[in-house]
């Protein structure tokens, strides 16, 4: 064999090997539309068959952005009922969440601006996060790993025009929150949070989400609905006591980091709904590494004294070195602060 022939053969083999290798590395779609989650004009966010919209009773506050949530289970797979933690979705599941601002919160028909769609995909190696940023034309969203800051403007529910920045997280920031023992996990969709009504397209009335999931075979092993725990809606007093609503708000907004397996475990502060130790919950607990986040106050929570509680100070601050949560908030959520102040005020 001549040298030339050996070279040619080598080149051929190399090409073959490279092709094989490229087949094996999964290519991440560059555009949201590549997934086929939505039918028609994807900015309308009409889910394709198999993609099911859902909502949470008390969601995470994200700078007043509204969210559309969808779940896509792998075909013929279901979730097994478990009411102690977030549901254990099978490999192949994708959770889809689109963030947007209505142009006018008082009148949704005035249109909206889609900002980003986040995907959490359950692969055989674990959950993976991807962020797609909506383009100015609003006809597609493009993959972005490093995050972005966007200026947004809207008319709020009081009729005031508001301008603010909105942070689209980078991939590390995603797992900054979606993190249990350094493993990426979903945060929201637990039985407690899903136990509420939703108006499904094509049906005249609203239906309980758990019942819908059970009826359509998405959820198995579910007890009678009356036996399923239910998280209150934080701003609807008829859905739960002050304590219950405040604890649920803290659970979804803080406990993804502030739990014994989360990124904020170094602080010793645990804001999970299930926490029973008053000190771990912050009551008369001295801060550990709060720095100027302490706001000159001595304890996380001083019963009866919201104005002396670090928790209130940090939720009120918008200074990145003092505020909580550390990410995803640029404005003050006045309404939840009122709830938490009332909660601390009522403490003995």
């Amino acid at each position, binding site marked *: 064999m001549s040298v030339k022939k050996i070279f040619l053969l080598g080149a051929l083999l190399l090409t073959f090997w490279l092709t094989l290798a490229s087949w094996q590395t999964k290519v991440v779609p560059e555009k949201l539309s590549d997934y086929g989650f939505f039918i028609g004009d994807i900015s309308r966010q009409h889910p394709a068959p198999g993609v099911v919209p859902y909502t949470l009773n008390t969601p995470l506050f994200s700078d007043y952005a509204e969210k559309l949530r969808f779940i896509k289970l792998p075909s013929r797979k279901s979730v097994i009922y478990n009411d102690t933690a977030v549901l254990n979705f099978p490999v192949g599941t994708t959770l889809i969440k689109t963030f947007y601002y209505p142009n006018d919160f008082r009148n949704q028909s005035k249109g909206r601006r889609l900002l980003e769609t986040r995907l959490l995909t359950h692969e055989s190696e674990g959950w993976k996060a991807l962020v797609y940023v909506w383009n100015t034309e609003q006809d597609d969203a493009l993959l972005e*790993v*490093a*995050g*972005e*800051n966007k200026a947004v403007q809207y008319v709020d529910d009081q009729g005031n025009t508001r301008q603010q*920045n909105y*942070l689209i997280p*980078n*991939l*590390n*920031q995603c*797992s*900054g929150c979606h993190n249990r023992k*350094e493993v990426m996990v979903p945060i929201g969709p637990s039985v407690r949070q899903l136990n509420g009504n939703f108006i499904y397209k094509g049906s005249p009335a609203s239906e309980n989400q758990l019942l819908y999931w059970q009826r359509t075979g998405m959820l198995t092993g579910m007890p009678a609905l009356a036996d399923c725990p239910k998280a209150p809606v934080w701003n609807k007093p008829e859905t739960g006591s002050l304590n219950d609503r405040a604890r649920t708000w803290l659970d979804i907004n803080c406990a993804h980091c502030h739990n*014994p397996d989360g*990124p904020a*475990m*170094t602080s*010793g502060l645990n804001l999970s709904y299930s926490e029973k130790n*008053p*000190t*771990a919950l912050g009551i*008369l*607990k*001295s*801060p*550990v*590494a*709060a*720095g*100027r*986040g*302490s*706001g*000159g*106050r*001595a*304890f996380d929570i001083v019963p009866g004294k919201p104005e002396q509680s*670090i928790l209130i100070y940090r939720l009120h601050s918008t*200074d*990145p*070195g*003092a505020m909580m949560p*550390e*990410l995803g908030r*640029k404005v003050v959520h006045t309404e939840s602060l009122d709830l938490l102040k009332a909660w601390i005020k009522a403490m003995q």
Partner: protein
Amino acid sequence: MKLTLLILTAMLFASKVMAQPGIQKRYQTKFIMAEDGSTIELDAGTFSFTGSLSLQDKKRIVISGKGIDKTVLSFKGQTDGAEGLRVSNGESIVIENLTVQDSKGDGIKTMNVKGITFRNVKVEWTEGPKPENGGYGLYPVQCENVLIDGCTAIGASDAGIYVGQSRGIVVKNSKAYHNVAGIEIENSLHADVFDNEAYENTGGILVFDLPDLVQKRGGNVRVFNNYIHDNNLRNFAPEGNIVASVADGTGMLIMAATGVEVFNNRFIRNQSVGTGIISYLFTGLPIKDKSYYPFSTAISVHDNVYERDPGPAAILRGSWDGLFKTIRQTGQQIPHILLDGISDSAKLDKDGKLQSDLRICIQNNKDQSLINLDAGGGFKNMSYDQKPFDCQLVPLKASTVNVR
């Protein structure tokens, strides 16, 4: 023509130090895409970031600048994130040859990293010491094998170099000044702190164990061959933080720690407390953590040099002020070494003394003087008697770290 060139050059230079949103994305992308085992090279120049830069879930990464003050990462205009650099869940990570400036929160936080090296790194707040500065400069927490070598920390409103809830630690050849605490080892095991200079802080070096934390108990901490001087800065920590209770003029403070050996250090002109050894009870803060041990035990302070200018203590706030006034009213100079005298009554032998391996031993220091405050007994039997502390403990073992 020449003018145009000049303007162009000026514009180029200006764009290099002003807000650069493109830089944020470019560097963050580098950090996210870095392959395990690779080196992330940072150029010379000053780069402004609007958010934290983070590295996560990586192994054997070197983040390498062109040198202290040559590669400067400035977070002055930061709007997102609670620290400048953040590294989490990693193995064998090296951060070297760079400066981090003016982050809104902590300078460099590394959490849950096995093998973390800070080499020739400076973290500073450039507008002088003030409560608005971030809490910690270098901040490894819940890490194993921590090496801090040739670093500088300036202006932290808590601790310049802070190692918390970690194990296997060496802090050496480093400088800390104009912080509330220069160097602090908290709830950490097996630490060697040597050949450092801690000066012009409120407190030079602190070794603390605090309650309600995940890693409960520190110990085996050796502090030696350090030059700890002129730590008389007015405490500027925001209230609520434990360091806010450190007295201005503190060379070293040991609180609720077990197994600390302090030797061959020079404690010069720390005008209030050359070396303090206290229990957590001395702070008056409530303790609800049942597994927390609030006493300082097995402490050995030997072969150090103490020097101080004559005269009153540094300007103090709160309870410290009253305490030092009381001492001075007795006509005494304020002694170099201060003990609160609160010990664990459960660990006394039949003679009412602490078990010999748990004692506080103070021996063979140059110009040694001490006061036992008897804080547990309502300060009734304050004593300058050195005899009860004239003892020796078995020297602690050296700490070794396994890093790159």
